[in-house]
């Protein structure tokens, strides 16, 4: 049973009415097809109106939808022979981060990504996709391994943020993310990163340094989750909508800032409505990204990766009032 979002309510109500009419037609043998057709046309127009101009806050809700494909869905859908690998070799295996090796279009690659659950039980096991330091260290181990064997790396990002807990702090959440950042800058294999749902702060960036940054149409990526921003700015976590609207967190905003290289279109209504179609879109985008990167000499690849992040930011220099970015 699909879960509907609050702003989809009028559409859902209309669909229920259409179903009722259809049932009525069948049961009583009265022809209502004309009415049904009218309502269906109305439903289509309504859906168009809702999904054409989604607000940032509506996108945040779509990005959090539990039926969206997860990292494991993409790993299995994009690749053959996916072999999941576990553990950071230091403390434990963090279920909020998954990774492994697989064959993508005939080429061996390494996949890492944050992993959310499909239901409450799995979400508790996956800690709602919020990683501990051992999750970032597991990712680093697998990426270093990829470098050793010359495998390109594909990362999937869908997390509200790194987990803010006692154990996470004790084991160095900051250090774990920081270590990934500095290592990913220098990995001598191509890296493609995809923000598939939520890109929450340092927890997302810890898997987000690469040569090509892709983002799904309704995903968000920000310095801080909208609710947390609202809690700090206005001391009110329920003002998430206001924060979402003012913080430029959508894929379209990030493309404008040059933070992401490509926005991947989602199926009508969002990835959760047609997961297979979404996986197919991601597959062809990843294929063309790797095709481009894999033929680049390593030194050029690293130089371009350096420049990519080195040039991020907007400021004024001297008396010149033109923006540098």
């Amino acid at each position: 049973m699909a879960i509907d979002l609050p702003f989809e309510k009028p559409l859902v109500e209309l669909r229920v009415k259409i179903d009722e009419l259809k049932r009525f037609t069948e049961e009583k043998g009265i022809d209502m097809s004309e009415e049904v057709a009218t309502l269906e046309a109305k439903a289509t127009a309504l859906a168009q109106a809702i999904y054409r101009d989604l607000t940032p806050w509506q996108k945040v809700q779509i990005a959090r939808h539990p039926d969206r494909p997860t990292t494991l869905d993409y790993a299995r859908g994009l690749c053959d022979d996916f072999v999941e690998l576990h553990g950071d070799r230091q403390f434990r295996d963090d279920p909020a981060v998954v990774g492994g090796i697989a064959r993508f279009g005939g080429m061996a690659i390494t996949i890492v990504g944050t992993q959310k659950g499909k239901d409450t039980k799995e979400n508790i096991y996956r800690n709602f996709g919020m990683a501990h330091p051992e999750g970032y260290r597991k990712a680093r181990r697998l990426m270093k391994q990829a470098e050793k064997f010359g495998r390109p790396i594909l990362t999937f990002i869908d997390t509200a943020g790194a987990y803010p807990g006692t154990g996470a702090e004790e084991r160095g959440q900051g250090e774990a993310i920081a270590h990934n950042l500095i290592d990913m800058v220098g990995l001598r294999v191509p890296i493609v990163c995809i923000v598939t749902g939520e890109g929450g702060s340092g927890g997302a960036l810890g898997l987000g340094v690469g040569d090509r940054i892709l983002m799904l149409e309704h995903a968000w990526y920000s310095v801080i989750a909208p609710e947390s921003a609202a809690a700090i700015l206005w001391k009110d976590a329920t003002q998430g909508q206001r924060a979402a609207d003012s913080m430029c967190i959508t894929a379209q905003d990030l493309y404008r800032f040059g933070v992401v290289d490509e926005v991947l279109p989602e199926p009508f209504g969002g990835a959760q409505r047609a997961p297979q179609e979404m996986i197919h879109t991601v597959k062809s985008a990843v294929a063309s990204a790797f095709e481009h990167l894999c033929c680049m000499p390593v030194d050029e690849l690293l130089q371009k990766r350096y420049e990519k992040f080195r040039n991020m930011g907007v400021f004024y220099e001297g008396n010149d009032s033109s923006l540098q970015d």
Partner: protein
Amino acid sequence: MLKDLFPKKKRYATIAPHPSARDKVPEGLMNKCKNCSEILLSKELDKHMKTCPHCGYHFTLSAPERIAMTVDEDSFEEFDTELKTADPLSFPDYLQKVEKVIEATGLTEAVITGRGAIHGKPVVLGVMDARFIMGSMGSVVGEKLSRAIERAVAENLPMLIFSVSGGARMQEGILSLMQMAKVSAALSRHQSAGLLYISIMTNPTTGGVTASFAMQGDIHLAEPGAIIGFAGRRVIEQTIRQKLPDEFQTAEFVLQHGMIDRVVHRKDMRATLSTILSLHTKGGEDFGD
């Protein structure tokens, strides 16, 4: 009557001090220690490098004060003073806030970078200042640090960063987050060049700064009692629904958990840095030569 035996309290004429005399009491003559509440004369506090002589509490230093305490006299040469904050998100009230802070502090942004020497040994420094929007990192902080690190690479010099920061600057959104990757990129080149980077964490060092350059040093030092962590205390308490112990996320706590090398008292910092620098030579030569 009995009460006549106890005369009322005598009334005295009260004379208010002349207003001009009141104005002559200097501002900030005294300070109260935030830890032990001892009243300290500012002069005494300065003598102890702004640490409490009774309990050892370290008062927050401004970046200029920190630089003066760290490098040899007249050796500091500042970099990139002409970079100015922009407002890429058109965030409400952001630039007004920045202008106010600039006026109040005389700083241009939350970090000062430059070249200096410690006991004659040249270094490149980045020193953050908490007075500038909680020492938060936006595009200018990221750019100044990256340029300073690149100069250290070009001139074969060690890099020192004194952190004090609430993390990434919310008002610059995703671009603030990307500064973490940017400074990391610059430091990765410094690292590949085989150069020494010492990260010094002061109170507080949190959020995106902890999750990037503060934790990427060859050697991590911290001032006593400094709060060092990724997530804020309040956020963690809300998540786990428990009160955290007082010592949680202090310099001593993160030392115990293996995240830093040493806790160094402010009075010993310059000497410690000097010793560490002298133990790092490249190609058998001293940095000072």
